[in-house]
């Protein structure tokens, strides 16, 4: 039919068309074949490029159109005290961002938003005018504020998950717990030491999203996030808080530069409290000074002074060289170039017990001269002096103790009353556990369930029982620290006061005062060590550190539920179950 039509129009038969008569040159057909063939080659090459050479890239690009990978955040583990109270916890603190192109809010919503975020309206307008699809409004906002913002239902606002570290105990436990930086990495204290354990491991999940950004399907198995593990400390947050409070008040009252207090469980060696003042707020990253950050009880070393005397006397008792009521000549005498005396309160002669009670340097040197340097040196070493406490704390000081072989007689003399060696407050407190637990030095632990190093037997049980009775004398009238006597509990301890050494010289006028003690004396439960740095104008350990000891012991033992072992004049007026009032049982 088509043919006919053509015929009718043109009036020329196709087969007789004159065009057919003209000869086509052969290159035309070859050219066409080449052209088409070439086009196919290009196609094959492109296919090869897309499907083989760059397959991965194109697949990825394709997936991006519908699939997206979400990162799942994991939270950092908590730090708990011995009773499970929270010392550090990560809370949700989202980052709030906007998409300026999609942002839709009425004037009222905008007003509420800026007031919730604490921004100036101008600031929000500047962000909204940005020519991008993403602008951060605020990072790490409070979870409560985030909830309010969610409720506003403003379009174009995104809350990205994030965490903020909270420290409920604030400054009182700051030196133990430490803090994290903005990347959630531990910077100090337990946060730093246990970074690996506390750290969470984020997960990821591949999903298919629809046009509105809703997840419609999972692609493959998601990788679940793993939250960090909790760390439980031996610290008792109640004891910690009251110890901090006591040392803070004492530092302020005595115009001291700083102060520290350590409370140890006398039987297990667990650290119940470790507080320093000045302290800092772990949640505030600004305005921290090195002086605030220093965990003085662990990092600062000083000459332990008189607190060493009980060990020397114990050794002499143990070796049978002295007896508690033996008289010792305490008149001043010379050891090499050194004149040993007991200024400002000289005594002609004292019993061994009184040497401890009155803290006599002459008496202690006389007693130490009966002991071999080797016995004394090895005992100091066994008590943990000159070796780093194994508590895994950053910056724990080792202190100095020269090997006994190199001691000269004058050095042995000064070392007997605690000069010529150095130790941290924590080391001194630990050494006292040997007196508190029948001659055995307790291993120090700060983390619950952590393998403790074996305890070491240094003295015989009878020796230290005698020594504890002698130490009791110091807190009684006539002793060096009657202010340390707690109400209702028996206690014993030793004061220390020393001029501070700076750059190898004693700095006149600047003192350090401390007190280390045990309570109750028959069945010791706690060892408490208190140190004040540069108290003014009163600087004697028995006057500034001893009252802190008393306060901490009274409240700690009460918190631990230890009944008083001393008779107290009762003021109880209530009557329980028909029993006589005004009756206090003593144990």
């Amino acid at each position, binding site marked *: 039919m088509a043919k006919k039509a053509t015929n009718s129009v043109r009036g020329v038969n196709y087969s007789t068309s004159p065009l057919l008569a003209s000869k086509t040159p052969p290159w035309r057909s070859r050219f066409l074949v080449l052209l088409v063939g070439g086009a196919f080659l290009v196609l094959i090459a492109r296919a090869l490029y897309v499907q083989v050479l760059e397959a991965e890239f194109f697949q990825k690009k394709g997936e991006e159109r519908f699939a997206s990978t979400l990162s799942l955040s994991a939270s950092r583990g908590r730090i708990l005290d011995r009773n499970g109270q929270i010392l550090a916890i990560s*809370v*949700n603190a989202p980052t709030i961002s906007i998409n300026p192109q999609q942002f839709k809010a009425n004037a009222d919503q905008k007003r509420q938003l800026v007031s919730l975020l604490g921004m100036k309206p101008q600031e929000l307008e500047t962000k909204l005018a940005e020519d991008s699809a993403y602008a951060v409004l605020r990072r790490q906002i409070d*979870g409560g504020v985030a909830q309010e913002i969610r409720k506003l239902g403003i379009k174009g606002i995104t809350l990205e998950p994030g965490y903020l570290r909270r420290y*409920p105990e604030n400054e*009182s436990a700051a030196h133990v717990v430490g803090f994290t930086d903005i990347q959630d990495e531990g910077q100090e204290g337990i946060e730093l030491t246990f970074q690996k354990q506390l750290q969470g491991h984020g997960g990821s999940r591949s999903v298919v999203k629809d046009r509105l950004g809703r997840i419609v399907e999972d692609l493959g198995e998601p990788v679940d996030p793993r939250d960090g593990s909790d760390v439980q400390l031996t610290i008792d947050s109640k004891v910690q808080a009251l110890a901090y409070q006591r040392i803070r008040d004492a530092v302020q009252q005595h115009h001291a530069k700083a102060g520290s207090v350590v409370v140890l469980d006398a039987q297990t060696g667990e650290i119940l409290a470790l507080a320093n003042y000045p302290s800092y707020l772990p949640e505030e990253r600004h305005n921290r000074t090195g002086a605030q950050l220093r965990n003085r009880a662990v990092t600062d070393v000083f000459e332990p002074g008189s607190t060493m005397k009980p060990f020397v006397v114990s050794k002499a008792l143990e070796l049978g060289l002295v007896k508690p009521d033996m008289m010792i000549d305490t008149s001043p005498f010379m050891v090499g170039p050194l004149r040993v005396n007991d200024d400002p309160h000289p005594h002609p002669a004292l019993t061994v017990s009184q040497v401890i009670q009155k803290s006599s340097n002459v008496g202690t040197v006389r007693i130490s001269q009966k002991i071999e340097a080797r016995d004394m040196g090895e005992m100091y070493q066994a008590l943990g002096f000159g070796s780093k406490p194994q508590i895994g704390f950053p910056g724990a000081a080792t202190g100095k103790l020269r090997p006994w072989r190199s001691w000269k007689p004058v050095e042995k003399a000064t070392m007997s009353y605690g000069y010529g060696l150095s130790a941290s407050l924590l080391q001194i407190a630990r050494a006292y556990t040997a007196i508190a637990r029948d001659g055995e030095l307790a291993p120090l632990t700060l983390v619950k369930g952590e393998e403790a190093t074996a305890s070491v037997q240094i003295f015989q049980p009878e020796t230290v029982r005698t020594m504890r009775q002698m130490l009791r004398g110091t807190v009684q009238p006539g002793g060096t620290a009657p202010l340390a006597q707690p*109400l209702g509990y028996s206690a014993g301890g030793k004061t220390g006061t020393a001029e501070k050494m700076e750059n190898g010289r004693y700095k006149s006028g600047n003192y350090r005062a401390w007190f280390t003690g045990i309570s109750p004396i028959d069945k010791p439960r706690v060892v408490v060590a208190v140190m004040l740095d540069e108290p003014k104008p009163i600087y004697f350990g028995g006057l500034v550190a001893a009252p802190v000891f008393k306060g901490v012991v009274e409240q700690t033992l009460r918190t631990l539920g230890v009944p008083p072992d*001393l008779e107290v004049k009762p*003021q109880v007026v209530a009557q329980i179950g028909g029993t006589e009032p005004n009756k*206090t049982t003593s144990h």
Partner: protein
Amino acid sequence: MTRVSLILLLALMGSGLYLVKVSYEARKLFADIERAKADEHQLAAEATRLDAERRSEGTHLRVERDAREKLQMRLPTPDATLYVAETRAASGGAR
């Protein structure tokens, strides 16, 4: 033969439509689960936050300060405490 084909065609169409319905429902349920999971996550986070907040409101330091300053309370000393000996009937010890 034609009839069998017709039946198969109808069955195919039916199952096709059913597939559409089922996958629609599956997506809807999936979206619900997603929402519920997000809610769960958010509530858990909120609970943690509130717990932390409650702890900071009730720290020992703060309680002690408020008790002392606002309520004029003081800590009981052993001389103002009546210690009851522990018996079998009433275990508890010091109070």
